[in-house]
């Protein structure tokens, strides 16, 4: 039973690191994100950054597992902090930390399950130029019934240096390892990432297959 509950819960929590964009885009900016991860999760998230140093937000995640027999919904609040930024002539590096608190409610075969409080802390570092993108993220999740660590790395390249008013194209390879004996090996994904800045805001679209043959897709708006 514990494993049946832990699996979907982990999948829910995996949804957050699938988005390795910067958790703070710009000061006085709002970020809204929608994600679809295979047949197992859907997520909506909104962050507001009063300063480039931190952002605050909330999200709602839904997990479906066991062909719909298991569903878990998590509501959470989270804060992100920019610990350090390196601005170089044609590159930028960042270190972020984040923490959050959530409430998870499960439903198994039509019956309501228990409510879990989930805490999360993590750190993310990235380095990018106009042609190269790399990032690494480690986060820990703790609830009364489970604790685990998720490590995610991304590396990608842009076939051309994008213009500010143009469309940026990136090809991103992702690898992820999870402790806790839930997922064996490293799960990979190959993503096509497109984004563009417009007068009303910015839009980001990302999609690609995972090594399990599932679709991973995400869209994000900044305004």
């Amino acid at each position: 039973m514990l494993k049946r509950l832990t699996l979907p819960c982990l999948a829910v929590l995996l949804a957050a690191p699938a988005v390795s964009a910067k958790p703070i885009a710009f000061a006085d900016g709002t970020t809204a994100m929608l994600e679809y991860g295979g047949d197992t999760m859907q997520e909506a998230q909104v962050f507001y950054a009063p300063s480039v140093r931190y952002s605050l937000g909330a999200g709602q995640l839904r997990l479906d597992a066991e062909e719909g027999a298991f569903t878990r919904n998590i509501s959470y609040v989270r804060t992100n902090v920019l610990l350090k930024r390196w601005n170089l002539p044609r590159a930028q590096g960042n270190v972020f930390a984040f923490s959050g608190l959530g409430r998870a409610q499960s439903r198994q075969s039509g019956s309501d399950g228990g409510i879990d409080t989930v805490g999360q802390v993590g750190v993310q570092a990235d380095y990018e130029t106009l042609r190269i993108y790399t990032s690494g993220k480690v986060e820990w999740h703790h609830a009364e019934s489970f604790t685990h660590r998720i490590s995610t790395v991304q590396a990608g390249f842009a076939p051309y240096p994008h213009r500010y008013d143009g469309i940026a194209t990136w090809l991103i390879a992702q690898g992820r390892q999870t402790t806790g004996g839930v997922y064996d090996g490293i799960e990979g994904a190959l993503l096509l990432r497109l984004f563009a800045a417009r007068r009303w805001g910015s839009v980001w679209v990302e999609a690609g297959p995972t090594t399990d043959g599932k679709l991973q897709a995400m869209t994000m708006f900044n305004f």
Partner: protein
Amino acid sequence: MLKILTAALLTLATTLAVAGAPQSITMKVDGLVCAFCAQGIEKKLKEFPATDGVFVNLEHGLVAMGLKAGLDVPDATLTSTLTEAGYTVKGISRSEQLLADIAKAHSP
């Protein structure tokens, strides 16, 4: 006759002053690599009453803003704004070049 001469001189002086006034500000900025994040710069610069358009060139690490006639923004304010936006300003210069011409010169 004296009034006409005075008016003419004032018009000439105003014209010369405007002709010599900067039309744009160009800033060299480090860390400018992502359009998704650099949008914050444009958003902040457009809040100044003096701003008449913003141009960003990621490849050259350049941010330029057009100036409305007779208006300007102090260097310290610009530096502070871009620093708060998360970037490092390496240089600020003013010119009589129009923003459209700067954009044209830095576009492929």
